Structures are given as C-alpha cells and as structure tokens.
C-alpha cells in the first residue's frame, strides 16, 4: 500500500478535461517523478492533492486517510508540503522571516497568540531556521527582502521552507526550473541526501530529465490528463509510447 493513493481522479475546467482517470500510487520513502508535456495536467494533479482544487471525481488518500474535503492547512498538517511551480513565498518579508513562518506554523499549528513571546528570543526556532538557510546557502541573504532575490534563490528558499516542516510527503513542482546548472546540481545532491537521511516520500514534477533520472525510483508519464505509463526509470527511457508523447518532443 502506498503512502499516497490517487484513484479515478478527474477534473474539468469549463470545456477542458484537465484530468481524467488518474491513478497514482506513491510508495513510502521513494521518489516518484511525474513527467509529461506542457499542459498535461501535472500541476493540476498536485493542486488536487493539497486542497487547492477539489477533483470532480475520484479519491485521494494519504496515509490511509482521505484528503478531500479538508482545508489546505489541515492537509499540510497531515504531513504534505509543496513547492510551487512559480515560487510562492512571502515577498514583503525578509528571507529569515520567510524561513521562520513554516517552522512556527508547524509548531503553533492551528493557533497561537502570545504577544509576550518574542521572535528574537525564540532560540530553538531561530537556530533551526538559521541551519535550514545554511543548508541552502542562503544565510548571507538572511536579511534580504525575499521579493528581490533571483528566481533560483526564491525556489531554494521555498524548498528550505517546505523541508523545515519535515513533511512525510514532499511535492515538488519543477523545483529546478530557472536555476543555474550549479544550483540544480546542488539541489539534486540535497534532495538525495534528504532522501537518505529522513523518512520522506517525494513526488516531483520535472522537465529536466537529468534531475528526473538522478532522483526518481519510479516515473509516471502523464499526457493530456491521463497517465500513459508508470515504470522504473530504466524502462521509461526506452518506452516507445513515452518517446512519442514526451521525450520525442524535447529530444
């Protein structure tokens, strides 16, 4: 049984059937890649997992519990964190403040209001945030306005923010898009390291095949809203259908 089980999921936008009959089974502590051409419905699928969209049909089970009908914050608290395709951070706040938010959100959960506790004196929280920034090579930018960072930096910050919550399932939507080659390689290394060190399941959407083949244990190919094949990276590489639908286009 997988940690994430998606069955029969369908989603329609007006006249467009963005997803239909989507089945996905992500096994615990693996890295599962979802690839497919632009507009295949990959991001839409993730939106259905985190409560941003409610699928028209089907079910989504995480650790044996349905996520449908729960609000996004509850789903996050169940252990799912997501990095968005276009970086979603708190642009008005500094890098350090951005880093503190997911940590405090996880700690305080639904609600915590204590005007007498101070940010500056929360030693453990601050140290942890500092460490996360260090791991991502962002420490020297800690007091920077996060909106003024490069796209690659924003993405690394968002990855750090998600990782700081120590999620059971990490959803990455094209995490290396807009990153320099060196940063991409660093990110691959970091994700590999995290996979080894923690009990974490990763579902990653990625166009960069180098990233996919470096990380993935299994790959699902999505085309026009339906899964085409699901297999190991070795088998996907030579799969004729995949070449036709996807690799053929980019190669």
């Amino acid at each position, binding site marked *: 049984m997988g940690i994430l089980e998606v069955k029969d999921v369908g989603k329609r936008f007006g006249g467009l059937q963005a997803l239909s009959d989507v089945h996905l089974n992500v096994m615990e502590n693996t890295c599962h890649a979802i690839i497919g051409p632009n507009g295949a419905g990959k991001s839409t699928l993730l939106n259905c997992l985190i409560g941003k969209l409610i699928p028209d049909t089907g079910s989504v089970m995480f650790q044996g519990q349905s996520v449908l009908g729960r609000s*996004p914050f509850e789903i996050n608290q169940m252990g799912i964190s997501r990095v968005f395709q276009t970086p*979603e951070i708190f642009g*008005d*706040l500094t890098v350090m403040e951005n880093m503190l938010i*997911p940590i405090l*959100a996880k700690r305080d959960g639904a*609600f915590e*209001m204590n005007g007498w*506790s101070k*940010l500056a004196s929360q030693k453990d929280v601050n140290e942890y945030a500092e460490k996360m920034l260090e791991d991502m090579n962002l420490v020297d930018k800690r007091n920077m306005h996060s909106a003024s960072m490069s796209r690659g930096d924003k993405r690394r910050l968002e990855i750090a923010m998600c990782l700081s919550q120590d999620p059971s399932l990490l959803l990455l939507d094209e995490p290396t898009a807009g990153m320099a080659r060196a940063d991409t390689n660093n990110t691959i290394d970091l994700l590999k390291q995290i996979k080894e060190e923690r009990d974490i399941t990763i579902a990653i959407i990625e166009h960069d095949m180098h990233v996919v083949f470096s990380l993935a244990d299994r790959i699902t190919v999505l085309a026009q809203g339906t899964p085409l094949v699901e297999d190991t990276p070795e088998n996907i590489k030579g799969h004729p259908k995949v070449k036709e639908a996807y690799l053929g286009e980019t190669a």
Partner: protein
Amino acid sequence: MLGLNKKDASLLLMVAALVAFAPILLNPFPEASALAQFNAGYPDLMQRFVIFGIFAVGFNILFGLTGYLSFGHAAFLGAGSYAGVWMMKLLTVNVIPAILISTVVAGLFSILIGFISLRRSGIYFSILTLAFAQMSFALAASVLTPITGGETGLNLALDDPRILEGGNTTGNIPAPNFFGLEMGDSLQLNVAGWLWTFNVGYYLAGVVLIIAFYTAIRIFRSPFGLMLRAIKSNQHRLGFTGLNTRPYMLACFVISGMYAGLAGGLMVAMDPLAGAERMQWTASGEVVLMTILGGIGTLIGPVLGAGLIKYFENIFSKINSNLLHEWFAFLPDGLEDFVVTIIYPFVGKGWHLTLGLMFMGVIIFLPGGLVELGQRIRRVFSKKDANQHTKPAE
C-alpha cells in the same frame, strides 16, 4: 528594556517623552503673541491627540499588519463610549471601570462583526464592516434610543443610581474622576509669558497611550505579528504552510476593536457624553486617513497621523478672513485682498481642502506617509554627513 530591542525601546521612550512634555512642546508661542492661536497645548486638544492616537494605533494593528481595511472601526469606538457612560451612570463616576468596560464591550462587539466580516477578504471585507458600522449608527440613533439616548446622545444625569457612590439627588452631577482626581483638574503654570496647562485627564489618557503603544510593539514583534504580516503578504501560501488563518485574523480584529473601544472609553472619561455620530462612516474614514497619512504598518505613524489631522481640524480651521487680513496688512491694499482671496479657501472651514490635497500628495509621493518623509529627510542629512567625512580622505 521591557523585552524590547534598542530601537523599539528608544521609540517607546520618545513617545513617553512627547506625552510627558506635550503641554510645553505644543505651546511654543507666548500667550500674548499673535501666533498663540497656533498653540495646541490646551487639555481638550491634547486629550484628543492621544485618544485618537490610541484609536489609530489599534486600527493599524489590523490594517497595517494584515492589510485588511476595516471601514467600520468607529462602531467599536461608539460601542465603547456608550458602555463607558453606562458604567458611570450605574456604578461610579470613577473612570477606571468605565474604561475597562468600554474595552470589553467593544471586544465582544468585534467578535460578532469580525466573525461575519472575515468570511470575505479585500473590498468585500471593507464593505461588510462598513455596512455593520452604518447599521449600528442607524440603530443607535433610532431604535436603540433607550440605551443610546438616540440623537441627543447619552449623558450623565443627577438621578443616576451610581451604586458605589450611593447616588445623590441634590447638588451637581459628580465629575468623572480617577480616585478623586477630576479629569478636568489642571495645574496651570505661567512662565515668562508662556502658559502651560498640566491636565489630569490628559495625563491619564497619555499613560494609557504609552501602555497601548508598548502593547502594539510587542504584538508587532511577536510570532503572532509575523503571522499577521504573512497574511498580508500571501494569505494563500500561509494556508498551504499549515496555518489556519481564521483565528489569527479574528484575534487581530478583536484586538484592534478593543483599542477602538479603549479610545471610546477615554473619550467619555474626559467628557461623559456619547452620541451616535461617533459611529458614523466619516468617523471610520478618519482613522483610515490618520493611519495612511502617518504611515501604514509603522509603529509611530498612526500616532503622528492622528496628531496631524486633529491639529488641522482644531487649529487650522480657526483661521478666518479677518485674521488673514491682519497678517497680510503689510501688503498694499489690492495685493492684500488678492493674497487673502487665494489663501482663504484653504484655511478656516476650507481646511478639508488642504487636508485632501495633502492626502493626495502623500499617497502619490510618500506612500509611507509621514514616517517615510522623516526617513527621507534623515537620509539626506546622513548623506551630507557621509560626504563631509569622506572629503578629507580625498
């Protein structure tokens, strides 16, 4: 100091010093001089400065931190006022219970309004709060007359029960006091032509302002405050980060409403009369102007904005055409009339015009309000300093 960092502590000290010395600072002109009418250091006006300062600081906790623009905050001020007067009628003319009950009642009232209005965000939230406030105003002026005194307003009467004082049916209505010190009591000092008035009511309100300001600093710097700023920055993201934003928003709204109630309570402590117009939408709009003029989301901004608007309302508005003629009497007759005609629309009853122009100017050129103005001036000076320091090295 008091758990504040150096910068915040010095800001708090500055506010405390301003409050303490306002009767002197705001009376820069000798009593006999022609400019004495620009003096703002009389109790009535100084009380208004600090009370509206509290109102604006509280409003800014909501608007400045979360970006939720309430257009109905005067409703809480009004509710607080009524509660305060009732406390003085029923229990005692000591102002402390009145101020406390004002805050509590406004808090309860804002739970109700906040719970409903916060189902929406953006412009819809603003409209909902506006609708609630106008509804409260209309009800207070009509149906609720037994509680609010209707259009004439609610004030103290000689035959009020005043349980704690036993009531009296002869003599004067007792004046609001702080354990015997009447709010209207003042110590007047006449020093070499300058008149300084140290008023009990003003200092009571001033102390409350300092406490309210300190509390606001603590809220701004707490994890709670960070979450509120994150709501303003990207509320959706915060949801996907595992935070339930609703209780945070409601708590913030209620705190902000309690500040308004506190201001309302202080108002009736200074002058025990509450009228429905206090809840009208213009009053709600005024606190929005104060906050924007002073600097949205800054700590000191709202206090400055409140001061500026109240100064204009009370001082600028008193300049009439006679006075203008007096000032420009040194010009040749024709020119004098001309200059007075030009200036007249901007002063006296026309002060709204000046305020409006100023407001536009601030929005366009100084989105950060007076605080940004101050920062820019400081930057200009520090640049000059820096130049002077670097010159010898060349």
